[in-house]
């Protein structure tokens, strides 16, 4: 159910007051290039040592980016631990190797598996952290502007991203209303699998019907305001790439090329 959803709290930016830290002022395109460069690096190497170093560098950069990113890092730590620790152990147990570390019944754990499991776990954590940093430091509306103004994505589709994000609280509220309505009408909490399935079916049909109505209303309102009537549109706010962001992109690309060449 949508009720009470808590999607990585603190990730999504809506408050510009919080966004005055560090490199937050950098253009989203520069941040995207940084994420891509890090992704290329972590996907290139497969040893625990190099992956560990990249992970530590990302953490250090994240911690130096100001209070907001540090707060997001703190909130993310539990997600990371819950996800990464089982992933590491499962990989370690499953992966084959030739140098045994210990044997427990039919289970043999090897040094090669340890190295590779650690490398893959660091890789996943780095991919997660870089994306999270991007989210923590970027406003969704800047991403939409970047898609239309720099990446030349047709605005009808770029704005669908804003639309999707806008629908999240609306549908969450809608789900809460449906649940309350069901309670007011005297529906008892379901017991057993069959009643749970029926309750879920009733809830999802109501949610679907209301969502389609909302969808039709939104589409009509957008059409009335001339959304998509012209191939191009004007913008109340332009978001050009600053010289600082251009230099930053150059540095990221050069550093990535150097690492790929050197190591």
């Amino acid at each position, binding site marked *: 159910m949508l009720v009470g959803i808590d*999607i990585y709290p603190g990730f999504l930016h809506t408050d510009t007051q919080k966004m005055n830290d560090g490199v937050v002022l950098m253009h989203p395109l520069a941040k995207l290039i940084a994420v891509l460069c890090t992704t290329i690096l972590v996907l290139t190497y497969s040893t625990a040592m190099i992956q560990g170093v990249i992970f530590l560098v990302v953490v250090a950069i994240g911690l130096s980016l100001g209070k907001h990113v540090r707060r997001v890092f703190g909130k993310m730590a539990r997600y990371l631990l819950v996800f990464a620790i089982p992933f590491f152990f499962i990989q370690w147990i499953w992966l084959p190797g030739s140098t045994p570390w210990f044997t427990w019944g039919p289970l043999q754990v090897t040094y090669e598996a340890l190295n590779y499991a650690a490398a893959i776990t660091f890789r996943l954590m780095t991919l997660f952290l870089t994306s999270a940093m991007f989210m923590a430091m970027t406003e969704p509306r800047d991403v939409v502007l970047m898609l239309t103004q720099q990446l030349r994505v047709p605005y009808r589709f770029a704005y669908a991203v804003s639309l999707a994000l806008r629908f999240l609280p609306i549908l969450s509220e809608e789900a809460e209303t449906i649940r309350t309505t069901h309670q007011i009408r005297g529906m008892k909490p379901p017991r057993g699998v069959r009643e749970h399935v029926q309750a879920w079916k009733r809830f999802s049909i109501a949610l679907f019907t209301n969502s389609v109505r909302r969808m039709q209303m939104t589409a009509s309102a957008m059409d009335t305001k001339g959304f998509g009537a012209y191939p191009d549109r004007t913008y109340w706010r332009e978001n050009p790439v600053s010289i600082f962001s251009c230099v930053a992109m150059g540095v990221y690309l050069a550093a990535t090329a150097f690492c790929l060449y050197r190591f």
Partner: protein
Amino acid sequence: MSTPTTKLQRFTTIEIVLMAILAMANAVLTVFLSSVNQFLTTLGGPIATSTIVGIYMIYGVLAMYIIRKPGTAFITFMLGATVQTLLGNSYGMAASVVAALCYALAVELICMLFRYRRWNVGVMMTIGFCAVPLWFIFAANMFGYLKWGLPQLTIALIVRCISGIILCGWLSKMIGDAMARTGLLRTFNIGRDAK
């Protein structure tokens, strides 16, 4: 001759809104699925997690089943990846985007093969089946499955394909038909084709 702009104009505003809603629903679903995924990883390793792979692809296939226009899967999957990136998932931006591209390519190719005209259970199951292998190759490189060994990789791929057939192909058809029966999708191609 149609220009790229006129091709994109083929999508009505309500179709774009539907794609956005499905992308948003997928992002929410992915957050819930990440805990299920963790549980399955702990329970049965990489093969157990493969059982729910089909659910990750359902939004794009469902959009294609309802809208039935070329490019629907591509736009919906890319929207899904962007929204997922902005809301957060456990796999990072690169995995979201690459997975979306792989799924979109497979779904569009199969639909093109059937000229966007045939939408029976067999076609939908074929779409679900074909959407799996390409991303599996990329995921194997990205998440280190390549070192598992051939038997585990083969079992995981088979389980994923079955999951794709049932949880993506078949379920999309069931959900789409149930939605069409309510009569609320009359403005979409699925509603027009049902007449």
